[in-house]
């Protein structure tokens, strides 16, 4: 559809988990290749090359002398020596947990693996977690509980096009992962039904045949209500339930509480719409239930995802050809990033840091004694929240993340970061977190690195080096290996292929088994789906065809109950604030806000406000408003639209400073996954000024 691809290197987009294939040309422009969504790129992908030669790049380490001094350029040796000396001193005085590591879901598998090993072997700290905790953790926890394994989509993304019905829950892919919409378009063109669950009338909801709009924070009750209707009408798959699951009887009794009229009262979704959705799912030849952050980023996110899984299991979907449940992963390597040891409770290969056999296996690969490995650490928000407190860490190393913008209750987290003895940030631009660091390390961008990414399908793909990094910039693998050496820990390699082979050995026999995957294999085709335990294993595009990854091979129904766990609106904070993304920006916006074309498309933070609320507040479209919650206040331009329901306001979280949506968000955590309640809290809005002309 576009010009034939000129000379260049085949790699994948740096942004979301779809990982659209692209060719990076010598002039730093990109062209799409037909994978995995048929050759599409959104505006983020098209413009991704423009940051490679950007003047915003960091090309030299920066050091801050004294707490209030400016950042000054420094040599790598000085920066790494300083870091190593300070870390060693802090560890000697306060113990290994005085040092913490914070990773990211955009790092390659090799870097995520190396970082986990670095924390456990070189720093010997238990304190490592990553921003994926704020992304995928609820779906991961629920998937592990129900299926014994967590692979976002246990089927290839192309299956969407052939599904008779698709239920997308809290998942605005038309903005956050636009090229995947090709599959939804194809699905609808073939006569399939698309059902979208979202309080907002999003771009994705506009595509739907049926749009259910629950009050924010009530998805769990809606999921139970749909399952109630499926069972009440006798549309559950008894044969499947009998052969492939456990726990149905207990679930069935709990679901009796979720009769449609009650669910309507709790969620606001009319009974007729519930019945239509249940009938469409039950009547379809094949059906997919897929969740996104909208339903997962809650303090009951794990149970909410479980409720959607219960619905899918009652319908007999997971493991059936063309059907299934899946979670649509967000960050580029959100999948691989959570499999290889960045998570506080995990070791590579999705092994458990609590399991003796798992510890022994990984310790052997790392050449250490199992007893030398630390135990489970704190989840991301707990780790950040504790910084500088009596039991908290005193130094933090940040790789591929920008928590000053992306963490919940960000004002508090920024203060905690500023109070650290040592904050080290590795990034390729001066992100808001880098700007307050004591040491900043300039690292590669995607087109300058080699490695692997695991996309939303669990497909391992190659990221290839298309250009050399600018002088002064180093690769994170090299940086971590160098730091480990300075800390007296041998065995860290800077070569990605070598690290990947080690990762394969560490993952061998684990749930996410990469042992049979090599760069050679990846270079020969469109990637390999894990698990792939041996060189002659073809990989596993579809999981669960025969059995689930639980001990008895059966999927597990967990009865879950709705309770109003969200921060309750009251007279002072009468509105519900929900947060999310827009098409033109990615995550904290550190990259995309620095790309002119994207900044022109969406230049500043806004808040969507229903016309009824706008009228009540005397706010016109474009006026500046102050949004307040119990955590803090942010300023944004009002966007008056009935795409949001009355009393629900929406703010994207990509902007910095006093436009940070996360100054407002509720850090109440899911007890299982550690996911904060990003998606709903009580808020108020006041007019702050005239429309900026």
């Amino acid at each position, binding site marked *: *559809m*576009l010009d034939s691809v000129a000379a260049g290197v085949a790699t994948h987009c740096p942004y979301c988990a779809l990982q659209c294939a692209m060719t990076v040309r010598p002039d730093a422009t990109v062209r*799409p290749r037909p994978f995995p*969504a048929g050759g*599409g*790129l*959104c*505006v983020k992908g*098209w413009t991704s090359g423009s940051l490679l030669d950007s003047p915003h790049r960091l090309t030299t380490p920066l050091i801050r002398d004294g707490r209030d001094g400016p950042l000054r350029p420094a040599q790598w040796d000085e920066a790494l020596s300083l870091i190593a000396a300070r870390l060693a001193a802090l560890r000697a005085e306060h113990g290994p947990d005085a040092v913490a590591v914070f990773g990211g879901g955009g790092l390659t598998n090799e870097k995520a693996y190396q970082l986990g090993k670095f924390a456990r072997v070189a720093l010997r700290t238990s304190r490592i977690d990553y921003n994926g905790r704020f992304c995928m953790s609820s779906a991961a926890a629920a998937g592990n509980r129900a299926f014994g394994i967590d692979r976002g989509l246990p089927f290839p993304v192309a299956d969407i096009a052939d599904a008779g019905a698709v239920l997308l829950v809290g998942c605005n892919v*038309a*903005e956050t992962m*636009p*090229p995947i*919409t*090709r599959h939804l*378009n194809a699905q609808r063109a073939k006569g399939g039904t698309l059902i979208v669950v979202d309080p907002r*009338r999003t*771009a994705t909801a*506009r*595509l739907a045949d049926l749009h259910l*709009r629950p*009050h924010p924070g009530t998805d769990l009750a809606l999921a139970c209500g749909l399952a109630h209707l499926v*069972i*009440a*009408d006798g549309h559950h798959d008894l044969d499947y339930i009998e052969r492939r699951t456990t726990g149905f009887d*207990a679930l*069935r*009794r*709990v679901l*009796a*509480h979720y*009769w449609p*009229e*009650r669910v*309507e*009262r709790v969620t*606001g*979704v*009319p*009974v*007729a719409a519930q019945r239509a959705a249940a009938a469409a799912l039950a009547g379809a030849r094949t059906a997919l239930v897929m969740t996104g952050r909208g339903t997962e980023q809650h303090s009951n996110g794990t149970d909410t995802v479980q409720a959607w899984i219960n619905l899918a299991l009652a319908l007999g979907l997971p493991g059936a050809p063309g059907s299934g449940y899946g979670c649509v992963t967000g960050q580029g390597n959100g999948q691989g990033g959570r499999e290889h040891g960045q998570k506080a409770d995990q070791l590579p290969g999705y092994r458990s840091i609590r399991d003796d056999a798992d510890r022994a296996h990984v310790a052997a690969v790392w050449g250490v004694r199992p007893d030398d490995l630390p135990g489970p650490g704190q989840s991301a928000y707990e780790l950040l929240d504790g910084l500088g407190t009596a039991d908290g860490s005193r130094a933090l190393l940040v790789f591929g993340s920008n928590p000053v913008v992306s963490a919940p209750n960000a004002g508090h987290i920024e203060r905690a970061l500023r109070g650290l003895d040592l904050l080290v940030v590795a990034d390729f631009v001066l992100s808001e977190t880098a700007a307050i660091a004591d040491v900043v390390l300039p690292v590669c961008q995607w087109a300058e690195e080699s490695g692997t990414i695991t996309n939303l399908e669990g497909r391992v793909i190659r990221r290839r080096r298309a250009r050399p990094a600018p002088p002064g910039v180093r690769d994170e693998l090299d940086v971590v290996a160098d730091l480990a050496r300075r800390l007296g820990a041998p065995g860290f390699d800077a070569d990605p292929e070598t690290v990947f082979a080690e990762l394969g050995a560490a993952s061998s026999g684990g749930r996410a088994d990469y042992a049979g995957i090599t760069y050679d294999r990846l270079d020969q085709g469109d990637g390999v789906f894990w698990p792939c335990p041996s060189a002659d294993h073809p990989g596993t595009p579809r999981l669960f065809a025969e059995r689930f990854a639980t001990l008895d091979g059966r999927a597990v129904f967990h*009865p879950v109950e709705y309770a*109003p766990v969200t921060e*309750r*609106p009251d*007279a002072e904070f*009468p509105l519900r604030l929900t947060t999310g993304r827009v*098409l*033109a920006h990615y995550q904290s916006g550190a990259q995309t806000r620095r790309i002119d074309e994207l900044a022109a*498309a969406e230049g500043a933070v806004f808040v969507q406000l229903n*016309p*009824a609320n706008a*009228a*009540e507040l005397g706010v016109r479209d474009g006026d500046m408003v102050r949004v307040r919650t119990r955590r803090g206040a942010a300023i944004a331009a009002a966007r008056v*639209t*009935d*795409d949001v*329901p*009355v*009393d629900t306001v929406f703010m994207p979280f990509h902007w910095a400073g006093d436009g940070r949506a996360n100054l407002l968000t509720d850090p109440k955590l899911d007890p299982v996954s550690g996911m904060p309640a990003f998606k709903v809290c009580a808020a108020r809005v006041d007019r702050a000024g005239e429309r900026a002309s």
Partner: protein
Amino acid sequence: MRIVVIGTGMAGVRFAADLRAGDPGFRHEITMFGAEPEPAYNRILLSSVLADTFPLRDIALPAAPDGVHMRVGRSVTEVDRAARVVRTENGATEYDVLVFATGSTPVVPPIPGLRGAAGLTPGAFTFRTASDCRAILAAARPGGNAVVLGGGPLGVEAARALAGRGMAVDLVHQQTHLLQRHLDPVAGRILAMALTAHGVRVHLDTAVTAVSGEERVSAVRLTDDTVLSCELLVAACGTRPEVALARACGLAVNGGVVVDDRMRSITDPAVYAVGDCAEHRGVVHGLVEPAWEQASRAAADIGGWSPEPRDRPVLPVLRLKAQDIDLAAMGDSAVVDEVDDPATEVVVFADPARRRYKKLVLRAGVIVGAVFMGDTGTMGTVTDLFDRARPAPADPAALLFDLATSGDSTEQVVCRCNGVTAKTILACEGRTVSEVARRTRATTGCGGCAGDVAALLTRASAKDPFASLAAATVNGAS
């Protein structure tokens, strides 16, 4: 503590579950007595069982949690508050705290022939318990005649359900319109039309004066001497709180067992009452939401934790469970117009031909009542505002109709993935779609706008390019 609960209905079971959930150390021993012979079940779903939209076998409530002793089929015959003992015919059980969750019992009107020495005449039933439901189902047969007494929610649901099972149903109501506590006369009439359309004959402003039949019910006679033959009669004439036991043991009983804000009897601090049998601040509810809230409140008080904070009490919302008749009513929904109350604003949309009726009752800009019949699309928002006493929009029309008016029509983005506007595409007049793609990136994301781009290009060569914009922005940001 030893805690005894009388009643295994919705309120009693919720109480036990809540108390147990907050008591991981098993400090409390809970014993529940249920007069009905079967395990605790979900009474709310009986109408759906009768309507054949929910299977009877699935109405059981979740099994009692560990540490809760369920004694079903055991009626408590006496409470001795001085000795802190309850007695059944099987013996005595001591308590430290006693909870009444005895619910309510159906009212059987004093109509000649309706009741015999051994209870209701065969063929006549109340509709309260699972065994009532089973008995009605056993007596119902397609083609048969049924009479339902009472045009309240339960009577309407029963009439609709029996009609759905193929019976010819006569619904007899003493008032001049159905659901008169919840609906105004116009809404009541539209509901009657809807029922008639489903095969229910509605008789208003009349009463049954006699029930005839030797061994079984065979007919009823109305005030005007009309005779309706029937083989099945369901009396849905309301309920009264079941307070006989409470009264007999000397507790203060008015409409229900009088309780304070902690759900304790005002007579005896060791006794609580929750659900339909309780009277709190002068109100006896008959709905599950307040019953559950009272149960949680009592459990918190006994367990020693803070109850879920609430700005205001749960306001009951009536939601009819009648197939193909979508009806909800909340608050002061029966108010007719401002004449009743000058401070009241009433907004009504009536469409009897399509069996639609929507109504908002506002006081000082706040929704204090609402009715939705036939189209409940905006009801979620209205209920939410009503529950929280939030100000309604200045123009309440937005609450009656789901008008998707939004979208910034000035932007006219056609390719959302790449932010390409119609104007940009129109500027490519004379080019092909793939040329436009190369120039503007339109269609290179999800590709969903390819048809729109082609249409725009076609029209661009015609005279009035903007005429097609409305159609062309379907997949864009409109």
